[in-house]
């Protein structure tokens, strides 16, 4: 039996993959003492999730206010619950993709609205950091948004790629099952529409972070040094160390294919993982690339335990969608060519009636 995958058919969805930004303080639960593992390291092991309704960047209406009011939280979480309920209604099998709503929330429209709620799992609550409901992951800059880009820097749209449908290499990394859509593995690790689950395992010289999508594993070399050979592995080159109760991970050597909001060449991401409660890991991050942004940006959110373990996300093995996209594009071209061929012929036929017995085009 072949494991079917949730093919990443994300059509032009600008999922503002959420993430939280952070202050430097890592306040723990009162009197909470982070456990150490058998190696004497802060114990971060387990399966964790960062699913949330909060996004990386702050909606502009909040201005510089990083903490939401109880009314705002209620509205955001309530609206989402309604969206989920609507999306759980059975879809009329007679409905065609062209009949689907133009907008159905979360940036989806048209055929993208074909996802019933059961297929998605973006979280249903606003992110709490130290109990505070947050309006964005980014905390610095103060408006919770990415700092200005340097003049001349362009950020390619990761979903609307040029030459879409022409070759497999023109498709998104997610459609090709090379990485998740969005930025699930990171770094910065950002939640997305579904499968926001991670497992952390620690040996004395390595921290492995299993990312549900697309069974990527981040291997963090404790006490290691960045490679200097010019090679840029998937998810960059991560080294780490422990500072008291905190795992610090520094990543450089990002590949262009997985640029973080346009940055890769000179990008450095620093992540800090701190166990601040039995069911909370504070995740703080800082991204800097002086060739892309005027200044570094940073933020924070909290991981909470996943419900259950992580199942295999065997994407490529069931990737019927990529074949479907490419063959669909070829079929469209063939139909257009056929139409073009037929059109002038019909015109001629209309102008000069075909003699009887002549085979019509």
């Amino acid at each position, binding site marked *: 039996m*072949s494991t079917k995958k949730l093919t990443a058919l994300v059509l032009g969805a600008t999922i503002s993959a959420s993430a939280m930004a952070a202050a430097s303080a890592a306040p723990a639960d009162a009197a909470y003492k982070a456990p150490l593992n*058998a*190696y004497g390291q802060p114990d971060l092991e387990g399966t964790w999730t960062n699913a949330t309704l909060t996004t990386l960047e702050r909606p502009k209406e909040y201005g510089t206010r990083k903490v939401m009011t109880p009314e705002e939280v209620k509205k955001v979480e309530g609206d989402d619950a309604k969206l989920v309920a609507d999306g759980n209604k059975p879809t009329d099998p007679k409905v065609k993709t062209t009949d689907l709503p133009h907008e159905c929330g979360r940036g989806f429209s048209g055929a993208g609205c074909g996802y019933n709620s059961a297929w998605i799992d973006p979280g249903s609550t606003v992110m709490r950091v130290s109990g505070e409901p947050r309006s964005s992951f980014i905390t610095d800059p103060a408006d919770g948004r990415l700092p200005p880009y340097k003049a001349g820097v362009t950020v390619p749209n990761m979903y609307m790629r040029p030459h879409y449908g022409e*070759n497999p290499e023109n498709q998104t990394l997610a459609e090709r099952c090379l990485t998740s859509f969005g930025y699930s593995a990171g770094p910065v690790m950002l939640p997305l529409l579904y499968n926001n689950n991670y497992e952390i395992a620690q040996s004395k010289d390595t921290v492995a972070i299993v990312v549900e999508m697309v069974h*990527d594993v981040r291997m963090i070399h404790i006490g290691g040094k960045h490679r200097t050979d010019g090679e840029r592995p*998937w998810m960059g080159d991560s080294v780490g160390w422990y500072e008291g109760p905190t795992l610090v991970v520094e990543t450089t050597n990002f590949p262009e294919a997985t640029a973080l909001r346009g940055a890769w060449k000179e990008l450095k991401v620093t992540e800090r993982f701190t166990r601040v409660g039995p069911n909370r890991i504070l995740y703080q991050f800082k991204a800097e690339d002086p060739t892309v942004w005027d200044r570094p940006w940073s933020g924070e959110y909290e991981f909470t335990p996943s419900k259950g373990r992580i*199942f295999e996300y065997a994407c490529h093995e069931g990737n019927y969608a990529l074949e479907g996209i490419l063959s669909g594009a070829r079929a469209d071209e063939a139909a257009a060519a056929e139409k073009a061929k037929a059109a002038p012929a019909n015109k001629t036929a209309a102008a000069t009636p075909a003699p009887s017995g002549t085979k019509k085009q």
Partner: protein
Amino acid sequence: MKLWALVTLTGSVAALSQSYAAPSAAAHKTPASGAIERIGGHPNFSGVWSVMNTANWNVEPHLASAALELRPGPVVPVPAKAVVALGAVGSVPAGMGVVVGGSIPYTPEALTQRQENQKHYLERDPEVKCDLPGVPRANYMPFPFQIVQSAKTLLISYEYDGAVRDILFNDPGPAPIDSWMGQSVGKWDGDTLVVTVTGQNDSTWFDRAGNFHSGDMKVVERWTLMNENTIRYEAEITDPATFTRPWKMSMLMYRRLGEDARLQQFKCVEFVEELMYGDLRKEPLK
């Protein structure tokens, strides 16, 4: 393949296993040379490992041969057209085999299927399409894997295709759905790690020689550290739909040391796009 130098352990295994790393300030206690490190009361398998055999070409004993897929020639079989350009690079290295007793006890029908698989190797081997390898094949592919073990966790991360296994020490019951890598439930038998793997689909193979199984296969692995740098790995295969009796594989795995002890990435999905989707390009290559 790289030359695997078995570096004499003069320093900490931890330091040696960090090819790009200077020994960290948080240096760890170095076990006495030859001692098997323990964690949580059990042998510590953490590290980067690989086999040094040719089981992935064929788990049964075999001499070297010209290619993985052959076609009849005027005198002897010759490499199939699709691989002939590879020359010696496409040939198969010999091996002593890893099947205990030498041959796999196929049922007659399954044996015929294996022969068919060999004839149509290129279109059938899931490795050709970069599919996840399943267990036990993942363990003896010509790529290393890394074990990350703590007192409560044991994770196996494979270089090939980013395959990964989390060994569950609390049996959750039957796998809720079949998967490529299956469900691995571990327990300790003294100093041997015993892992029972079920819930694998029927789409993986044992090797490049067409050796296969059904979706009902159960694999019981036994991982035993013989010394700090060598694992004796055994896998008992039970699958009545395919074999007349349970059978075993047995092989050694070696710790990668020094500059070799760093897992790389082999995301082969993009390497097979021309093979799988080339004919669907807007302008297929001639």
